[in-house]
């Protein structure tokens, strides 16, 4: 069973997507733990399996293409994947809620934002229509939108405003765990900071735990307590914010940081990770990262590296650290 102090405990989760003739392991033996009140950053490139992992927490992996092969997802001690439909409906939106990536398409175009916020409230709090509307109005104001706009439709809002509405929907029932799936990716740069700040403030005041999915390390630095780095369906490095930022060990993690422009030294060259994300239907043998890895060794293309605990908080999957925990990447670039 799971430790009930952990709001989320994902154990050995494996999810496959199958199309006509291909099977893709989107999520491969993933373990994630979030303790109460903490924020975990799930970082990785597009297609690494972050969103699929998140959807499994709501048991909303799109069927029939997506299939959960194995694993358990404990939400406050209860396994979401083996829940009855009725209990699942109680949990979704109430215990765990999700902010989606694209606010443009995440709202129903033909319902007022008020109806959409109130819908979740009515399901979980048994309020009548009128009280739910009052509550929805409060939520709208909470995310910084004038309450009078409750009767307006999504097309009357800008992208940033829509994302605020999506946040209001997610927070309407004060969930214990908030999943934010790249909540700022689809927004203008100037709006991104505002939305991020809003999420962070609300998280504090509601005392929620959060899973922040992103590929932006800046966001991670700002909001997260812990970080998991995901590559091709696997978590290849996990650690506290300090572990990852100051003592990163996996070559991929290092690559991610090297790809960031350095504001202090503008003449320094960007060092992008060479190559592209592998074709998910045809992953490289052994460690999926080895064709792009500067430190690849012969065994990397043969054998999947085993996970290794570097410290209580720091976990890594890489052949480089088989014999020793000494940092092979030569210091940090901080």
């Amino acid at each position, binding site marked *: 069973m799971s430790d009930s102090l952990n709001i989320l405990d994902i154990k050995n989760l494996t999810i496959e997507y199958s199309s006509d003739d291909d099977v893709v392991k989107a999520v491969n033996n993933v373990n994630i733990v979030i303790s109460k009140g903490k924020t975990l950053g799930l970082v990785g490139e597009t297609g690494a399996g972050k969103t699929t992992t998140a959807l499994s927490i709501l048991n909303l992996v799109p069927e029939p293409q997506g299939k959960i092969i194995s694993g358990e997802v404990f939400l406050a001690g209860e396994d979401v994947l083996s829940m009855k439909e009725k209990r699942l409906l109680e949990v*979704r*939106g109430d215990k765990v809620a999700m902010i989606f990536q694209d606010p443009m398409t995440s709202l129903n*175009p033909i319902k007022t934002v008020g109806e959409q916020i109130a819908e979740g409230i009515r*399901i*979980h709090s048994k309020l009548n229509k009128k009280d739910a509307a009052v509550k929805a109005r409060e939520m709208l104001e909470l995310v910084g939108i004038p309450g009078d706009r409750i009767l307006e439709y999504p097309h009357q809002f800008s992208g940033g405003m829509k994302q605020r509405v999506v946040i209001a929907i997610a927070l309407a029932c004060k969930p214990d765990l908030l999943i934010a799936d790249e909540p700022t990716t689809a927004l203008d740069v100037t709006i991104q900071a505002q939305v991020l700040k809003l999420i962070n403030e609300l998280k504090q005041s509601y005392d929620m735990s959060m899973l922040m999915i992103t590929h932006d390390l800046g966001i991670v630095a700002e909001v997260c307590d812990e970080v998991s780095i995901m590559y091709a369906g696997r978590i290849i490095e996990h650690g506290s914010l300090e572990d990852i930022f100051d003592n990163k060990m996996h070559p991929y993690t290092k690559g991610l940081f090297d790809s960031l422009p350095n504001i202090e030294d503008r003449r320094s060259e960007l060092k992008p990770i060479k190559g592209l994300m592998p074709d998910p239907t045809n992953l490289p043998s052994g460690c999926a990262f080895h064709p792009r890895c500067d430190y690849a060794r012969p065994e990397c293309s043969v054998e999947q590296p085993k996970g290794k605990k570097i410290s209580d908080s720091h976990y890594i999957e890489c052949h480089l650290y088989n014999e020793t925990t000494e940092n092979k990447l030569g210091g940090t670039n901080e």
Partner: protein
Amino acid sequence: MIRYILKRLLAMIPVILALTFVVFTIMYLTPGDPTARILGNEYTAEASAILKTELGIDRPFIVQYFSYLGGLLQGDFGRSYITMAPVSDELFARFPNTFTIVIWAMVFCVGVGLPIGVLSATKPNSVFSNITMVISLLGVSLPIFWLGLLLILLFSVNLGWLPAGSMNHGFRSIILPAITLGANYMANVMRTTRSSMLEAIRQDYIRTARAKGVDKGSVIRKHALPNALMPTITVVGMNIGALLGGAVLTETVFSIPGTGRLLVDSIGSRDTPMVLGCLVIMAVCVAISNLIVDLIYAYIDPRIKAEYAGGEA
């Protein structure tokens, strides 16, 4: 909303004017001398000239058109060349029959096509779904006049369950004509609903709703269906004209005294004012139903409503 309806009603006027003009022109071009047919053996040059003046067909085209239009505004469709009785009498006596079967055909095509389309989309890989796909594919290819004959053979001749024609048996006599007339469109509605539902179910806002804890049934009913209805309404709306066209065939198959049958008979007897009347009344019906469809659109989709309010997009 009321302003929008008024606006649309005003916009209909030039359409109806143009329609009557087109139909009038086509009919005006009909070769042959109508007086010769009316007078028959009593035809003389003088009698013909007198009759032409009486009918007003010796006047220039444009004058004839405007006098016809003036008549229309007062509900006067002219007089039949055959019976010399007002066209409107015959027209309004017959029109309710056509209207009845068209409405029931619509009820049939929406009442059957829509729910089956929705169900089939919610279980996209099931046997049921595949069967509905095949049925809808066959359904859109069925010549309805043939289907009518087959239905008569089966249900009237062999089984003796339903009457084969006329409108004298109450609702029982409407069943076969309505199914016949609606068959193509039922298949069409089924297909459209299915594919637009499949499309709607894939949308992100469906996931948002499910993440809120909305149960599957409500997600379909409250979120997917209203969005998926738009293409279905378009199909139904666009097909009202085709239904009226199909009514001509259905009335022929089932010997129903409706406007469609009247049109064909009048063409046979070269009764131009009657033909004109039938075409005008059907065209006006289509124009009105297009308006209704647009209003339903605006009612369902706030984005369209906003456009008409003249407000921000």
